[in-house]
């Protein structure tokens, strides 16, 4: 296989790997949007919270990896419920601007608290699954990468079915589409909000912890949350399938751009390319590739 083809393939493979990470993050954001019509700009900070919780569990309490992961999930669910009840509940019914500002403000608070407790140093997790290796097309993947990808894909499939068939999933979709109607059928909308925030926090926490293990943890890990905005825009903010597909697409596009354009443009082109493509797509499909068009009524 000739060399430039190999490069292309390698870039695409790495893009898919990165995309699987994005997919979990964007899934979390879409979840919150579908459940409570809120664009959570603090998603990255939830990621960070999960990572720090995992850090404490593994380094202070010295728990083994799997146990720590499960416990982190539990803690994140509590955090998600807490956030929803304390900060989002009073904002029910307020304008979009207010709600978005609250999530933005929350992201600052989270980062500040984490900074106070842990400072801005980079922390390293104890080594997990270092020795298992898989080679795909000339690229080594250490064990933890495999776990990350596997978990990401598995969870995505799980939630796809959750939303389609589980009673809670259906209830969440109902809440997202029409709160009044849902209430009149007897579903507690408030509980649904809590549920979707809890699940979203759990998902973000898991991926945060995994990311922390793979590349070290410091306050800036929340940046990933912003990067996940690109796939959401592309796929449509309320489409699970769209977000996941778009995540992989964006991962690949970013890598290809970094691979081919960086030398001509000379810089970190990843974010810009992703956002530029989105701007272009939005001109033709304003609601993203798979988003539902909003039909407004007076």
């Amino acid at each position, binding site marked *: 296989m000739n*060399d430039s083809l190999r*490069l292309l393939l*390698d*870039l695409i493979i*790495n893009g898919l790997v*990165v995309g699987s990470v994005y997919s979990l993050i964007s899934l979390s954001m879409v979840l919150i949007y579908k459940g409570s019509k809120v664009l959570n700009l603090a998603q990255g900070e939830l990621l960070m919270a999960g990572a720090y919780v995992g850090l404490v569990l593994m380094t202070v309490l010295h728990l083994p990896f799997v146990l720590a992961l499960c416990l982190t999930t539990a803690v994140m669910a509590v955090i998600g419920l807490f956030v929803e009840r304390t900060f989002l509940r*009073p904002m029910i019914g307020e304008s979009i601007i207010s709600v978005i500002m609250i999530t933005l403000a929350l992201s600052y608070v989270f980062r500040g608290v984490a*900074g106070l407790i842990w*400072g*801005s*140093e*980079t922390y*390293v997790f104890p*080594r997990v699954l*270092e020795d298992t290796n898989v080679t795909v097309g*000339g*690229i*080594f*993947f250490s064990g933890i990468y495999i776990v990350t990808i596997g978990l990401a894909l598995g969870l995505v499939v799980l939630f796809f079915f959750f939303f389609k068939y589980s009673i809670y999933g259906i209830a969440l979709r109902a809440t997202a589409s029409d709160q009044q109607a849902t209430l009149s059928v007897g579903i507690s909308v408030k509980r649904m909000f809590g549920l979707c925030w809890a699940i979203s926090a759990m998902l973000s926490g898991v991926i945060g912890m995994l*990311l922390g293990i*793979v*590349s*070290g943890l*410091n306050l*800036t*890990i929340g*940046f*990933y949350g912003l990067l996940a905005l690109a796939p959401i825009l592309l796929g449509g903010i309320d489409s699970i399938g769209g977000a996941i597909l778009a995540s992989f697409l964006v991962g690949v596009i*970013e*890598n290809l751009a*970094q*691979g081919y354009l*960086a*030398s001509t443009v*000379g*810089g*970190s082109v990843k974010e810009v390319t992703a956002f530029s493509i989105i701007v272009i797509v939005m001109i033709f499909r304003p609601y993203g590739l798979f988003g539902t068009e909003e039909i407004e009524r007076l």
Partner: protein
Amino acid sequence: MERLLNRPSGIWLWPIFLSMAAALVFTLPGSAVASDKVIKIGSCPDLSGPTSEVGKPFSSGVRGYFDYINSKGGINGRKIEYLETDGSYNIPQETAAFKRFVMDGIVAFIGWSGGGHLQIAQMASAKKIVVLGASISDVFANIQTSPYSFIHCASYDQVWRAMIDHAMNKNPGKKLKAVIIYPDNGYGHQNADTCRKYLKEKGLELVGEEIVGFKDIDATAQMLKIQRLNADIALCPQVEPSIAVIMRDAKKVGIDTKKLQFYVNLQGMGPVGIKLGGKNVEDLIGGSPFSAWEEKDLPGIKMIHQANPDKKALLPWYVHGWAAALVISEGLRRLGDKEVTGENLKKSLESIKDFDTGGVTSPISFSPENHIGGRGVKLYRPNLQAGYFEAMTDFIYPK
């Protein structure tokens, strides 16, 4: 909760607002006059931003030295007051800090970020205040644009020269191919410019450049491209997390780090890099104008140990800060009884010749034409067992 929401709740915010306003008015920094007994020196290290891992120990080093000197009676009977605020790698914040400290009557300022220092150096020269910086780029030794700016050790230029020379010495006669991997900011570009210049001067081939930023967690795409370039050396002005990511992804795509020699400058040679990178960084070589804490035989380093009896280990950037404070203090010491002003301090510094820092840096010399204090660079290798970078050479003096 409902009742609270319905009351004219704004009222209770007023006491907070008013007390804030009152406090602000009453506690404004006054225009202090530099008294003869106290010398004020200001600084704006990054204590919370992307380079805070380097900034915090640097700040401790500066403070450590001044505290030590003050405990020995100060300089010529005068004590040093070290004013510090967090610059957070944010240029407007750094320049605001500078302006505030100028009002407090500082005679010297220690800058931080490459971009901020550039700006502050110009302002300082207008206000006749000496500046040193953690960013030891040659740009700051330009006497035309910033005559009050000094570099307290070998500059980045020397560090890269030393490392490139090392590579050339190991491969005599071969025309080496180099890549530069740098972050997309002031620091990265300044270092990259230096590398390019020297590569050209030595006739080496620059086959590629890649950008890996402070925040990047994945550098696979960049490494894939580098893999195909068959370069011999990789010059990386990076911080620790980035160099760990770079070398991890280099190994991931199959680059043999024994064949492609990675070089990093002092911002990337610390214990965190080793912890994060593990075996991936075993072939890394670092360059620094300073000696390390572990070299306790050197009298200058011994002094650091004495000043910090309860510390197990201090980072390379502590030494960096300590050295900066040391050089300023030497300039102040040479003032004798003269009035402590920025202008006098500048002349005093320029009179320093072959000042022996006890091995902390190579001997320091300034002159009215040259504001780069040192020329010696030490090369380091990571000691994976011990968890820190170990000196593998003594001071090299690149030509």
